């Protein structure tokens, strides 16, 4: 692969997150480099989704610092994360079930629409040419994800694997710099997983998007990620190249239990 992994784009330092007395994350530090595929793994309840939520500003850690492109990020809201180029997909797919695939992906362009609501409603003047440009971008994504045949189908009628693909499409519509994927392959069969892997790698390769993903399927994680961070009970127990992580005794213990 010719893509180059760049400098650190997002640096998380000593992050701790508590919900009342429950410690979700304890003193976690790791970084994400530009253009890499970074996986977060760990058993159930390890704090993986919390970590993603910290990255895109849904949760605000009590301790720790986050540096985004070298600048410290103060308290921020999810929409600010979105406008700074961080997009995500969800574990339990948050699409608009009654809307078509096309419209769902179009919602991903909302932040990029400049003309005012009235003009958009009238489909007049600059709003019109703007929408055409956005529609073209959305069509490129549809082409990229090979979902032309369901362009006009309401999302609620689609099988799960395709909904996941549409979810990815909506995130891509934001043209993000960092793409957070929360279990993109959960509940998929082998073929759908292979397709999804290919799309993730294509996104990474073609658009240079940095990808952070949570995934349970070890085979997938080891195959497609550049570096892996392992969480267990809110603590970081491993960080490094897939092979290093795989042979890390603490990681093995967390996954297989003591005694192995």
């Amino acid at each position, binding site marked *: 692969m*010719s893509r180059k992994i760049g400098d650190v784009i997002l640096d998380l330092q000593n992050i701790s997150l508590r919900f009342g007395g429950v410690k979700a994350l304890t003193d976690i530090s790791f970084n994400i480099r530009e253009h890499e595929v970074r996986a977060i793994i760990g058993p159930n309840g390890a704090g993986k989704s919390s970590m993603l939520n910290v990255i895109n500003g849904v949760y605000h850690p009590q301790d720790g610092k986050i540096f985004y492109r070298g600048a410290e990020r103060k308290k921020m809201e999810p929409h600010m994360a979105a406008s700074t180029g961080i997009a995500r997909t969800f574990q339990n797919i948050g699409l608009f079930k009654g809307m078509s695939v096309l419209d769902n992906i179009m919602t991903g362009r909302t932040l990029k629409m400049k003309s005012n609501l009235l003009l958009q409603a009238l489909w007049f003047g600059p709003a019109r040419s703007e929408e055409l440009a956005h529609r073209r971008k959305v*069509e*490129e994504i*549809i082409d990229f994800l*090979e979902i*032309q*045949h369901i*362009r006009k189908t309401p999302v609620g009628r689609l099988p799960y694997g395709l909904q996941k693909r549409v979810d990815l499409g909506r995130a891509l519509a934001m043209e993000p710099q960092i793409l957070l994927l929360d279990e993109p392959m959960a509940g998929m069969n082998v073929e759908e997983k292979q397709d999804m892997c290919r799309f993730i790698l*294509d996104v990474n390769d073609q658009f240079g998007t940095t990808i952070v993903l949570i995934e349970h399927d070890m085979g997938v994680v080891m195959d497609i990620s550049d570096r892996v961070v392992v969480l267990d009970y809110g603590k970081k127990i491993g960080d490094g190249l897939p092979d290093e992580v795989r042979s890390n005794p603490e990681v093995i213990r967390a996954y297989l239990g003591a005694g192995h």
Partner: protein
Amino acid sequence: MPTQANDAALDGLHTFPRLLFHHARVRPGAPAMREKHLGIWQTWTWSDVAERVRALACGLASLGFKRGDNLAIIGDNRPHLYMMMTAVQCLGGVPVPLYQDAVAGEMLFVLQDAGVRFAVVEDQEQVDKMLEVMGELDTLAHIIYDDPRGMRHYTQPFLHDIHELMEMGRIHDRNHPDFLNAEIEQGHFDDTSVMLYTSGTTGKPKGVCQTHAAFIAAAQGGIAVDKMSADGDILSYLPMAWVGDHLFSFAQAMVAGFTINCPESAETVMTDLREIGPTYYFAPPRVFESLLTSVMIRMEDAGKLKYKLFHHFMDVAKRCGGDILDGKPVSAGDRFQYWLGNLTTYGPLRNVLGMSRIKVAYTAGAAIGPELFAFYRSIGINLKQLYGQTETCAYVCLQPDGQVKSDTVGAPAPGVEIKIADNGEVLVKGPMLLKEYYKRPEATAETINAEGWFMTGDAGFIDEDGHLKIIDRAKDVGKLTSGAMFAPNYIENKLKFFQYVKEAVCFGHDRDQVCAFINIDMGAVGNWAERRNIAYSGYTDLAGKAQVLELIQTCIEEVNAGLAHDAMVADSQIHRFLVLHKELDPDDDELTRTRKVRRNFIAEKYKVLIDALYEGKATQYIETEVKFEDGRRGKVAADLSIVDVKTFPIAKKAA
């Protein structure tokens, strides 16, 4: 053969490149090709296409493409791939389209046999296949791809983006402005215009070399029969390597000048069909069948009024729709009803199917059920059948308007002569015959006899209206002891048109009468039994029920009644039958993987049943070993009842 070119040579338009540049002159602004890209239909006019073909041809020439070179074309139906065909022909080369879904190993034989030096492929997937076989294919020097997606990291110098090729060509064209015209001038109607490989179900695939003159003659004949004009549209979605697509989407489009439309992807064909609303459409019978099924299922869910309306008017259509389409006399009352039906039912239905604008639709490739065929015709879609093979440019028989019958393939097409050999084999002669099999003179000599007749390998006869009726593969046709012809496939197909019959095997060669094994269709018969409160435990149980036997008996008697009207096959009426205790299965070697009956194997395996059928027994006990999907073996045993069927006196017609 000078006669071949007589029609084609009008105005000197006797090769495809000449035709293309003729259209570019006569109708430069008319649409020649369309393709949906990023959700929008893109159009190439004839002059656009001519410009690109010029660029492609010159580009190929600057890569060293020479007269007589073969070029493989592999991919879905894309405008650039169709343009490539003509570009190659401009230079006196031969395009060789391949089936795009074949794996690399399967392509290797054809690529080696044709000795291709150039390959034009659709995308990264196909490029990978070429790279896979390149080691064993030293002739292949250049690979050109249409879709650059995913190709960023491919740095091999022999890979070319098709747009780069066109740029090279444009430069070449500017530097040598007379080059291409001179090349086109050299093209002769007797040159091979395309090489299509036969599927090779028996032995290795053979490259069928067809000339410009052959395909142009076939195209002109079809256009004349169906009065096609330049303002038509066709949806090009069947594999480019198939002779039918080459005839409809390439040769006829080039001759008549109508527009070909390439779907966005294989999955969107049905949507694209509705958006384009083609005037000319081809589909194999199974496509028409699945369309009808989806309509029927949706009608079941419709509201009461719609449901009633639909069924009322479908009855009207059944009664008079076909006759109205054929221009036969129909009573004024029925005409009025049909007019109302057209307003409320048939019109909207055709619209949903994407067939509102269809002037003519064709089906071929397999037998089509008479009811299915009649359904489409009755709602005003001019569905017809044709007959032909790769060696005849898919052009032997066509059903002319007004003379359409579901069980014949129509009258000989203009310019085609047909003869039935003594063994019942259909022999064909005409301008559309193949030039030769590529590098296989012995195979060419075997299929074209000394008098120039092409031997189709199909058995058939010509009915009283002069229409050809195909009944079977010639090698399967036998004789009853009475000397009458026995065509098992023909009878079996008639049986299989009943939804209750899944498989049928008929015996009769060297015997005095015809007997049959039947496999019931578990789904359809099971449903039928449930509605009548007939309880059953499984296939064997259901197959043995007296009511089921009666049901099958009525089906067979209906077939017999039909056969009695057909002098050629009237002796083949089924006298006795039994319903097998197990389903015929490829796992037990009774069917091929493509679900064709292995007649001889079955005859041996179930010899006791055949003996029982011919000895006049009323029942026969049988025990059969079966293989389960997980590899275990078991036994199925049953006492099978053998049923006598009513046969009908042969209806003698004044010949």
